[in-house]
């Protein structure tokens, strides 16, 4: 319950109501404008008030730099390619399956796996913000959070894919998943031809982050 979804639902007077600021009276304008100094100022204030433990920040950063990243997703995909029962269970209830592998967590509480086939290419975006399956793919790359991707992926996915070097067959349909709720989508890319003899750990190397967003293909170079 760390996100406090339950603990902060009591209305308080004047809070939670939208109040549109003009450019200069938003609280952020009180901080230094240089972003690095701005972050430093906030960290300093919160540390001085006893609200932040800088060591906890270090721990969070190290977690997402070294422990939680697209390798997790690649392991799930590689196993789905090689283990039919696992694949079936993953497509049936991804949250359960990835939890059993220890990949449950923040921004991955409700997982759905969608499988790419010759007939259907899945692709994930969050047009309203930057929702992304952190426990399986880590922190999203810059392009995923860019205005250009958010604006264009839903309207012209084929032009977007072309920028990523992908041209789908003319009769392949595209399904773009706009992550508007707390459900997070993992794309299971197609297994490349000629990989029948590879081991699961060899396959993992073929599975890029972008392929699990649907903006890349597995084995694409």
């Amino acid at each position: 319950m760390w996100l406090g979804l339950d603990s902060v639902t009591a209305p308080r007077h004047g809070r939670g109501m939208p109040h549109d600021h003009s450019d200069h009276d938003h609280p952020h304008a009180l901080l230094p404008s240089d972003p690095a100094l701005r972050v430093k100022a906030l960290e300093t204030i919160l540390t001085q008030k006893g609200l932040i433990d800088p060591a906890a920040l270090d721990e969070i950063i190290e977690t997402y730099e070294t422990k939680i990243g697209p390798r997790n997703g690649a392991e799930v995909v590689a196993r789905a390619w090689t283990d039919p029962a696992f694949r079936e269970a993953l497509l049936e209830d991804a949250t359960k399956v990835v939890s059993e592998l220890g990949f449950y967590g923040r921004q991955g509480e409700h997982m759905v796996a969608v499988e790419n086939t010759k007939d259907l290419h899945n692709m994930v975006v969050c047009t309203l913000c930057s929702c992304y399956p952190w426990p399986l793919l880590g922190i999203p790359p810059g392009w995923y959070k860019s205005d250009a991707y958010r604006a264009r992926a839903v309207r012209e996915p084929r032009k977007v894919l072309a920028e990523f070097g992908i041209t789908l067959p003319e009769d392949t349909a595209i399904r773009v998943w706009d992550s508007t709720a707390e459900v997070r989508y993992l794309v299971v890319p197609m297994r490349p031809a000629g990989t029948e003899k590879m081991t699961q750990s060899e396959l993992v190397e073929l599975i890029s982050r972008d392929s699990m967003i649907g903006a890349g293909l597995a084995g694409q170079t």
Partner: protein
Amino acid sequence: MTRVHDMGGRFGDGVIAQDAQDAPVFHEDWHARALALTLAAGGLGQWNIDISRHARECLPPIDYARFSYYEKWMAGLAGLLVDTGVVTRAELAEARGQGESTWADKRLKAENVAGVLASGGPADRPSDIPVAFKPADQVRTRKITGNRLVDGGHTRLPAYAAGAVGRILRVHGTHILPDSSAHRLGDGAEPLYAVAFAASELWANPEHPKDEVVLDLWQSYLEPA
């Protein structure tokens, strides 16, 4: 039209600036600090994820457009800290915290980080609202997007998908309604669905007749079609 963040389908953005597959997770040290600071401050329990999304959406449109990603996070955080009374405007202006906070006992400790990240914060909740739709049912979204509880409030129906007919693809169970939760009006949990729309239902010049866009939409956003 809701707010400036609601940009799905917008024309005018150029090519997507791609990162290499092996680019660092954080391009700048301050990006990493900004992310960690936001997570740790969220741990104080003074706002939920819907409130914090809304705080970023409520940035002045000029700021929302010009700020880089983590600059939006920092500006949103500054707003949240002031709105909740955790930090004063004077403290922000002086870049100096005045005395220990009454919420200091909620500080996230380094040794609890792993457990907290692993436990997450699920959004499914029990609800008395009966599930009205099943897969393959035809539904129509609200003709006008926008929060019905609070004018200008948070909502998760993008403008591009307002007034569109789609079909239910999945039933996700009952989830917290962001339109309510973002304004501290309770969970308001209700059924949530993945709804598929033909591209031709959304765009003036769709790329391909087979293409679809799927959105996760709450039952109150939908009516039978």
